[in-house]
């Protein structure tokens, strides 16, 4: 039995094509995936990502626990700030990538992937046993999450908000009232465009979803499925758990080196220091196809006659009009311009390493 978000019927009423995504019945596309992609780049798109997990960590030792779990140093993190990081095993494999929201010194929210939530919880609870006063609470089942993304996102959300949104900077969050509902909003997302992530009680999911679509309609806001979410994030070189990152790959081999504060103590740090000392054997790269064809997950990558890696993500890029992808390759082959061959259905196809991201996010330009 697939799990459903509070908006399941709303998606069906909109004619969405539903798929099993990590055990959840989720909309992959409403009308046209490429149009949904362009809507986010040019105007605005609304995503139901309520399948994602939210874990509250509170109590006197909340800081110490989060600091131990998450790769990034949170010592200087202010209340109202969020960060992106990873949780590792002692061996340096990635348990999950996640965002951390700091409400107060004794209260944090971790936002994790849907598929990894059970493993994340098990790991977090195990680690929390050392901190008697710390409470770990999984609020995923009662929390809805909507992402409104695109250059028009702020203008649309502003019409329903009780605070001046321009004051909320990238990777900061606020507890606000949207259409009369208490919502935590952060200026963040997974698309490479400006936008917000909204967290609130399931009871208001249909209300907020409909209201946003209504007030955003004239600005071109449309509902967008997980298909568009995937092409948007791939263009920005953002990692997807189970594709680009997993227990067998370390954050240093992925693009998460910057998110690892190797000068503080966290689980997996020793393994990562050792990896860094010994030198990485493989590293993730972006590539674009020179020949026709689309590289997909698990397709082998060759340099000459030797297999040097494997594709982790690949898609046509609607924004760039090229076929792009990512994959792990031998670490001497990561220089942009390096020509590699990708085997597509038994046929060698030329590709070229290019710098990530393929598309520079709007907020970094």
């Amino acid at each position, binding site marked *: 039995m697939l799990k459903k978000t509070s908006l399941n019927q709303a998606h069906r009423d909109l004619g969405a*094509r539903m798929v099993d995504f990590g055990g959840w019945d989720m909309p992959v596309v409403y009308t046209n995936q490429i149009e949904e992609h362009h809507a986010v780049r040019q105007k605005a798109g609304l995503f139901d990502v309520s399948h994602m997990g939210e874990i509250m960590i509170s109590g006197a030792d909340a800081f110490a626990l989060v600091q131990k779990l998450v790769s990034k140093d949170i010592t200087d993190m202010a209340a109202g700030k969020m960060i992106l990081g990873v949780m590792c095993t002692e061996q340096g494999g990635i348990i999950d990538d996640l965002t951390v929201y700091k409400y107060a010194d004794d209260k944090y929210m971790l936002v994790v992937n849907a598929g990894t939530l059970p493993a994340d919880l098990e790991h977090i609870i195990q680690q929390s046993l050392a901190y008697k006063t710390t409470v770990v609470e999984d609020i995923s089942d009662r929390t809805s999450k909507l992402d409104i993304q695109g250059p028009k996102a702020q203008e649309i959300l502003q019409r329903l908000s009780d605070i001046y949104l321009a004051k909320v900077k990238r990777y900061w969050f606020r507890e606000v009232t949207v259409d009369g509902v208490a919502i935590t909003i952060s200026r963040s997302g997974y698309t490479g465009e400006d936008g917000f992530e909204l967290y609130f009680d399931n009871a208001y999911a249909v209300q907020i979803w409909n209201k946003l679509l209504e007030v955003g309609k004239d600005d071109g806001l449309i509902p967008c499925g997980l298909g568009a979410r995937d092409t948007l994030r791939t263009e920005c070189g953002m990692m997807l758990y189970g594709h680009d990152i997993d227990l067998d790959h370390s954050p240093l081999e992925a693009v998460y080196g910057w998110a690892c504060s190797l000068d503080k103590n966290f689980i997996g740090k020793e393994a990562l220091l050792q990896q860094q000392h010994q030198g990485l054997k493989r590293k993730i790269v972006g590539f674009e196809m020179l020949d026709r064809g689309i590289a997909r997950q698990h397709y082998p990558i060759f340099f000459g006659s030797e297999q040097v890696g494997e594709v982790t993500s690949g898609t046509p890029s609607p924004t760039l009009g090229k076929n792009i992808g990512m994959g792990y390759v031998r670490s001497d082959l990561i220089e942009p311009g390096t020509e590699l061959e990708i085997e597509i259905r038994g046929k060698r196809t030329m590709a070229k390493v290019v710098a990530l991201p393929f598309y520079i996010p709007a907020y970094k330009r």
Partner: protein
Amino acid sequence: MSDHNIPDGIFYNKEHEWVKIDGDVATVGVSDYAQDLLTDVVFVELPQMGKVVKQFGPACVVESVKSVSDVYAPIGGTVSEVNTALESAPEQVNNDPYGSGWMFKLTGINSSETANLMNAQQYKEFIAKQAH
């Protein structure tokens, strides 16, 4: 799901390909139902000319943004022509699946194999069941 265009006069298989028989030449494509399921077709890997395919055997590949799908030959034969226009305009599979979205032609066919296929009415009933 009942609003798909399923024209008469051609045959369909359970994998949602269609075949039109003109004398000793068969033209193959995917049905309107299939193109709707596939969503935006972005790439068609056409079969090699001269390739010999068996009835219901894999003949070529069609890719949407999200997925890779085999296209099966509704009847056996030898590939005698491929729709190279799809290399630059794969979206024709979505826009006109029975017309400019055709994929390949077969010669050396055995038209008695159409007995294993569905006519339009049977195929409509088949996809109506699939939808449930």
